[in-house]
């Protein structure tokens, strides 16, 4: 882990997001260092996804500050987030089902030639390269993604996040729709990206996933972070009780 005196890769301070008067995220502060996986857990409606949407630019925070490398940044839309090296894999995958894999991979930032025409051949070439790493058996580059299997679709969504040299990755339930073999693949990938020095927020319902992959775990409950713990210091039961009861056990306090 990076030396404590250097600023964290990402720091979200006092973030508030409300939907029609309900505080979905209420005064939350959280941070992430390079080469670290922070698991974000909590029950349904605890605010995990909403907090991450504020970081990925899908939803603007009502108040609070986001710092990257210690500098305050403004993130009001997905473009802002991507410009700061933040890539997101959404739980819904956010794929346009009618388009093929290369079109989805480059959605919103297509490669073009001199006169601004789409360079489909170049995009397919790049897609073949990144998919060769993630899913070597994948060959259906010209089929709409609606005709792909769940695992293949997930691979396309992951490829989109990996391809653009992200420094910060948000993964929202990345293994929820996958079989055992594909889940293992995604876990390997997370470890590999972490080793490459990325910071990863891992949002998951699966406590085992989170324990296997995270360095630290933040627990959310009713829109607030009720505790952030080092994985090494706690047991599954400690974290589960935080999720359910919304408060830390004495022994688990950092």
């Amino acid at each position, binding site marked *: 882990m990076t030396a404590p005196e250097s600023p964290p890769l990402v720091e979200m301070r006092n973030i508030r997001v409300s939907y029609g008067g309900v505080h979905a995220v209420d005064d939350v502060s959280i941070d992430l260092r390079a080469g670290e996986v922070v698991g974000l857990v909590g029950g349904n409606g605890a605010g995990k996804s909403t907090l991450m949407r504020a970081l990925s630019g899908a939803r603007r925070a009502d108040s609070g500050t986001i710092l990257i490398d210690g500098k305050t940044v403004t993130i009001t839309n997905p*473009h802002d987030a991507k410009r700061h090296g933040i890539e997101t894999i959404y739980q819904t995958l956010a794929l346009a089902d009618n388009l093929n894999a290369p079109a989805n991979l480059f*959605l919103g930032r297509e490669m073009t030639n001199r006169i601004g*025409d789409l360079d489909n*051949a170049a995009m397919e070439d790049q897609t073949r390269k990144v998919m060769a790493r993630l899913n070597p058996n994948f060959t259906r580059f010209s089929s709409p993604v609606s005709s792909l299997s769940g695992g293949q679709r997930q691979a396309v969504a992951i490829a989109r996040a990996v391809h653009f040299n992200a420094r910060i990755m948000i993964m929202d339930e990345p293994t929820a729709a996958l079989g055992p073999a594909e889940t293992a693949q995604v876990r390997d990938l997370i470890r590999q990206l972490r080793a490459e020095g990325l910071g990863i927020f891992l949002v998951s319902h699966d406590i085992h996933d989170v324990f296997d992959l995270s360095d630290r775990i933040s627990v959310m409950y009713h829109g607030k972070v009720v505790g952030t713990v080092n994985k090494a210091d706690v047991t599954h039961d400690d974290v589960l009780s935080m999720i359910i009861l919304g408060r830390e056990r004495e022994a688990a306090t950092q």
Partner: protein
Amino acid sequence: MTDSVATAQDEPQSAGSSLRGVLGSLGIDLRLFGMLVALALILVYFGIRTDGKFLSPSNLVVLAIQASVVAVMATGMVLVIVSRNIDLSVGSIVGLVSMTYAMLMTQWMPDLGIRFDTGYMWIVALALGLGLGTAIGALQGFVIAYMGVPSFIVTLGGLLSLRGMVWVLSEGAAKSGLAEPFQLLGGGAIGAIGGPATWAVGIAAAVGIVALTYYGRRQRSRFGFRVRPPWADALLAMVGAGAVVGLAAFFNANLWPKGLASRYAIANGITEPPGGLRIEVGIPWPVVLVIGVTLVMTYLATRRRFGRDVFAYGGNPEAAALAGINTRWTIMKVFALMGLLCGISAAIAAARLNGSTLDIGQGNELYVIAAAVVGGTSLAGGIGTIPGAVLGGLVMQTLAYGLNFTRVTSAVQNIVAGIVLVVAVGFDTYNRRRAG
């Protein structure tokens, strides 16, 4: 898209025996191919029924001109429907813009002292009309995209209120007598590009098809991708090039009427040969407009970011927004473009009439939507092609014209058109579901 097409491109297999397999390895869109077959069958049917009279060049040219007003707008309706919207106001936009052309050339500009024979009068009128169409489309698009009012409602309002404006504008009277150059946009013996230009266009298009095929091959082999077998590309290029040259020959088989030709001969001091002067009509201007609009719209839809954004939005609006696409601006542009195309159609319609009536364009929205949908555009959004919609419009128009030609009453024509619409889309839906 069917799986068979996709796998044939990705992992060519020995499926050469079936027609589907051959078409697949040629990379031909099965839906477009099916529509071409349907169009050919309809033409042959009416040809037989009328002892070939229906298939005479002069007759089919009239058919093509009649189809052009709907075909131009259908290219825009594809993008509207692909983006999960609808535009019911296109017929009324045609009405208002047509009347504007007529008012400009018969009243407003003469009132300002611009004489009728001024060379630029029609250009100014055309520019203002196209601008008006674009502005109406953009305004409706703004209300739809930025204020969140459903497009069905906004354009239904447009359908009613724009038609009302036609009446207000013209004080309830038809206008006629447009500038002569403007009238050419409506087609007819003089409103065509002539024989030599038609040959030139045909040959240029043939060269273009060969060049594009070669360019496409080079693009894909640049990265070592699998390309079609050379025989397939060569065959496709030859069929395409042959088809456009054949079309040029067809348009040139249409000759000026004898009376007009001999008046021209006398006026220019040419001695008439025994059989009368043979002057080739060539491609009518409205058909030139359809071809040009189809090419430009296909380019926008398939080769530009704008088109990619529209299709992405149609496939998954949330994914498009999360990818950072400015979805509202995209939708507004789609409607502005639709308005511009209505302006072009209005020019053809007004030029054909040499003026404007109160009900010009009325009911066009239904034919335009039908053309797009018969041409394979899915009302669920995200799926559709520009050439498909043009062909769809041609199929519907050929059917209507053929029935008219064989003296079927307009009531029966409507019955047939309605049934064809439902059957065509039902067939398409069945195919798509089977293909998964």
